């Protein structure tokens, strides 16, 4: 079933996704044709037109250069312009309206429904209308920003005004650039991720929309009010700022919000480097799906899935942990004058590794939130199709290529290879969300159970027979011996696991650019940082290894087995003869039995799991196999177990409903 041919494509090469300049590395090392479809403009349309052409700078911007590249624009134009203006310019290319009001000489403009500027200080309506700028934006642009012409462009400390969403945008930019360097298709950045992001900004009412009036002003006032206003006459007073607010009815809630904040951290002034940091954290944004650091990875994964890149989520997260994709300390790449402090730290400072489940679930929430249409089909030729992934994992688990026939049979029988099963349909609650990598691993485990039973007895029995046969048999490929395989893989796994555990303990979390909560403790933080560096140098010398190990080249494979090794540690070419028998011209397993992991599945929506895995209740061999894939995918064994249960129930659905009242052992 195409096992051999496909296998060649996926041999553990130097790197499946070589890091090269631009897309250059995507040449020979890449499994061409596997999983990646060509991305045409038609494919990516959903991000742009979804919210309706009138609201997003839709098709027209789609073709326009600046629209596609706004991800760049933001960071390039950071210096000099105030945050608001930058954002505005980047999104809408509209011009500032900086003139003073002829009546009261304030610069505080709002827009009327008719698209004309009016002065919010004296309610004088001018003749000037937005038509001059861009009609698309009359109803959607962030009008508030126009009125901030009077705001100082630079804060006293030399930092500039910036918004949380700008921060996340920079993070996304860095991440997608890293992905590009790893070899994903170059369109992903400008045509896919960029449009997802724009769509998100609009849906979450951060841009391209009518903002709730005065929101940012209030955020600012909160920020200012917590510092000593009197000492700084340059800054607008709290009252002055509040007077800018249109809906003074909210004043009360804002004040209580200030006090609650100061209770949280009394020692430090609650402030943020960003304009809206405090508001971002405090406001109940349930309806908005607030952006978080793990969600940046959800964005990346969603884009990867959209273009059907040959990267699984577990791989993506591994690349993050290995440092190939910026995540931890990504703020160090922020421009110098984009200062982070106070509450910004809570948003951008990451102190844990991303978790599969979280990124996965958020991605689905996000896809639904953005109202995305059905994703491009996952067909048999896609990398994420279980037949493909099984091939990869069989290879990585050092199992015989022949098993691929069996995984394909299971995939076919259970229907989990169907396009409708595999393709993501955002917001469809009736279908189960597919974890492609976990699913493939589970298929392999089910196949192993079918052939070897994995009851801590039968697999050793078969192994004994194979050993006997191998003694007498000198011709052809050797028979697959479960015992030998176990010994070889177990040894490698132990070594790698130990290495990983030590790496986790040795993981360096901090970067050279330390963050400080407030200016007050800046010098203290810097001193600490210096001391840490000094101590690291000292003990580095004592340990005899000043040089830290360089990060490994990114690779799709964590375990490598080569048939060129003559030590017989590679089982890819081993044969399943002896385990199989021919019946009616069809190969079937010698093993007539099967045990189910569970007879009844749990309700995943209610309890979060399909099944419950307790190590002691299952055979050691089964646990070993789960552990192996748990290591490869870097997720908990119980998640793979869930998936195994799901496949089993699909596979034995008919028999199960009939025989449920009997015991757990089923005859095939």
């Amino acid at each position, binding site marked *: 079933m195409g096992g051999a041919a496909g296998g060649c494509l996926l041999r553990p090469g130097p790197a499946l996704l070589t890091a090269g300049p631009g897309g250059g590395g995507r040449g020979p090392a890449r499994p061409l044709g596997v999983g990646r479809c060509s991305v045409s403009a038609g494919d990516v349309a959903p991000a742009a037109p979804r919210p309706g052409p009138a609201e997003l700078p839709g098709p027209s911007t789609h073709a326009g250069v600046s629209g596609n590249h706004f991800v760049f624009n933001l960071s390039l134009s950071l210096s000099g312009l105030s945050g608001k203006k930058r954002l505005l310019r980047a999104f809408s290319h509209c011009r500032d309206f900086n003139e003073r009001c002829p009546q009261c000489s304030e610069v505080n403009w709002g827009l009327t429904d008719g698209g004309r500027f009016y002065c919010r200080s004296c309610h004088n309506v001018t003749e000037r209308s937005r038509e001059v700028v861009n009609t698309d934006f009359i109803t959607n642009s962030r009008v508030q920003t126009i009125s901030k012409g009077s705001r100082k462009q630079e804060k006293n400390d030399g930092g500039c005004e910036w918004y949380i969403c700008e921060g996340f945008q920079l993070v996304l930019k860095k991440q997608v650039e890293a992905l590009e360097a790893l070899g994903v298709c170059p369109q992903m950045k400008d045509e896919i991720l960029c449009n997802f992001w724009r769509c998100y900004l609009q849906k979450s009412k951060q841009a391209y929309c009518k903002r709730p009036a005065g929101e940012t002003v209030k955020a600012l006032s909160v920020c200012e009010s917590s510092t000593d206003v009197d000492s700084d006459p340059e800054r607008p007073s709290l009252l002055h700022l509040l007077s800018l607010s249109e809906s003074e009815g909210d004043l009360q809630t804002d004040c209580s919000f200030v006090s609650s904040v100061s209770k949280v951290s009394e020692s430090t002034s609650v402030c943020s480097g960003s304009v809206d940091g405090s508001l971002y954290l405090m406001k109940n944004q349930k309806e908005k799906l607030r952006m978080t650091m793990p969600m940046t990875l959800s964005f990346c994964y969603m884009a990867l899935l959209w273009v059907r890149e040959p990267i699984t989520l577990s791989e993506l997260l591994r690349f993050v942990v290995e440092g190939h994709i910026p995540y931890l300390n990504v703020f160090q790449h922020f421009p110098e004058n984009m200062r982070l402090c106070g509450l910004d730290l809570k948003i951008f400072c990451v*102190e*844990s*590794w991303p*978790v*599969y*489940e*979280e990124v996965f679930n958020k991605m689905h929430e996000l896809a639904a939130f953005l109202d995305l249409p059905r994703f491009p089909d996952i067909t048999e030729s896609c990398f994420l199709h279980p037949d493909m992934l099984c091939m990869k994992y069989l290879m990585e688990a050092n199992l015989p290529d022949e098993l691929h026939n069996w995984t394909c049979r299971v995939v076919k029988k259970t229907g989990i290879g169907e396009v409708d099963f595999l393709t993501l349909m955002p917001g469809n609650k009736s279908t189960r969300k597919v974890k492609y990598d976990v699913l493939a691993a589970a298929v392999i485990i089910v196949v192993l159970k079918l052939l070897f039973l994995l009851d801590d007895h039968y697999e050793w029995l078969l192994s004994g027979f194979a050993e006997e046969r191998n003694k007498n048999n000198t011709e052809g490929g050797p028979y697959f011996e479960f015992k030998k395989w176990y010994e070889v893989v177990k040894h490698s796994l132990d070594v790698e696991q130990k290495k990983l*555990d*030590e790496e*986790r*303990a*040795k*993981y*360096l*979390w*901090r970067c050279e650019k*330390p963050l400080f909560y407030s200016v007050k403790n800046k010098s203290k*933080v810097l001193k*600490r*940082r210096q*001391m*840490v560096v*000094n*101590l*690291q140098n*000292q*003990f*580095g*010398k*004592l*340990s*005899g*290894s000043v040089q830290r190990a360089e990060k490994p080249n990114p690779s799709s494979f964590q375990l490598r087995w080569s048939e060129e090794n003559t030590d017989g540690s590679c089982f890819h070419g081993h044969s399943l003869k002896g385990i199989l028998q021919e019946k009616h011209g069809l190969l079937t397993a010698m093993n007539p039995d099967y045990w189910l992991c569970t007879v009844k599945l749990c309700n995943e929506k209610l309890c979060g799991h399909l099944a419950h895995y307790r190590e002691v209740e299952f055979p050691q061999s089964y646990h070993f196999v789960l552990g192996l894939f748990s290591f490869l995918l870097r997720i*908990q064994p*119980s998640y793979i177990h869930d998936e195994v249960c799901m496949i089993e129930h699909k596979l034995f659905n008919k028999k199960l409903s009939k025989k449920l009242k009997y015991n757990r052992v089923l005859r095939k």
Partner: protein
Amino acid sequence: SSDEHKLNFRKSKEACLSYIQDALLQKQWKRAAEFLTCYVESLEKDYSREHIGPSEVIWRIGTEIFYHSQSSMKEFNYFMEQMKTLGVKRYLKVCLEHIFHLLCNGQIDEAYQNLSLAESWRFGEQTAVQDKEMKLIQAYRGLLDYYSWSKQKNILLEHGEDGFSDLAVEQEMHGYFRKAAVNLKEIIKIPGVWDIFVKCYVDLLEFYGDHNEAHQVLNEYAYNSKFPANPNAHVYLYQFLKRQGESKKTLISALKILHDIVPSHELMIDFNTMLQKSKKRKKRRMGLEVIFAALDYAGWKENAKAWSCLARQVKQIVISGKHLDWIKQEWSSRKDWWPAFHFSRYLAKRNWQENKSLSYEKALVAGILLGKDCKYFKYVSHQGCKAQLKRFRMLKKFVNRHNPAYLRISG
């Protein structure tokens, strides 16, 4: 449950610490240093009010690693200076540790300098909180002053022999005395074990003839109930009294307490000797008790002196025929384990080979306590006679003659 397995900063550092501890237990100093290199990051998140936070861990473990690594003192000093800035709450402890390290490396002057610096440290309330450590710092400075005094004294004594005295050196010496005496006097007022300080202070006092003060200090050190029980306190007192030529009675009462605390102390030989010579029966009896008790301890097993003390007293009693009941009483609690402990045939063989006079004394005791048929006595007397040694023949005769005594003891 995913949170449980989520690797975060704290968990990563906890794992790191346990790797460090493993490496330390296995004396893999380099490996420990390697992990500590990664652990130091936790300083940047040290907001904890835990009893032992990362900074203390780094100080303690780092010092240990430095101690076992080939690194220059310069590096170590640099490390210590950083540790001092890291924790005001244990500033003086870190200083002390640093000073010990300097002393161990023979850098007396640097140690003295550091002590003076530490003494002048002021940090608001913290100075008061670390009062005890400050006293220790001062005491150690006193100790180093004593060391200088002692050096000057030796110079003077040498010169004195040449009939030549140097006034300047003498003045300097007296200066050291004053500085040392002030600080040493302070520390020994506080209840604690201050052996080294007490010894030095008493030495100073004795040199300048202040015997009353010295006596008082030693008395206080030995008998003040606020101080922890300390055998050395009684030893120092006894030695002082002996130097002063005090009466037997005083000496005996000093050693009596030592006997109560440490029955196996080496001074028990002196004690027994004194008691044996006493005219009072009670004291002689106590002497027997003392020597029996000492020999209960494995450390005395092959001490010929102790055995000769016992042999002498036992012999005396047997010859005089009086007070056999004393022996009987001491023996009754030991007769079921001493034979295996002291008088096995194996020991007889080994003692004979290694130390003839030890085996002689032991054989005498064995012969009287266990009779002429006991293995130890039989082997040793046989070997002695074979080697034609006169005193062993005498021994055999003596035991045979006094066999009835054995019967009375064992009966």
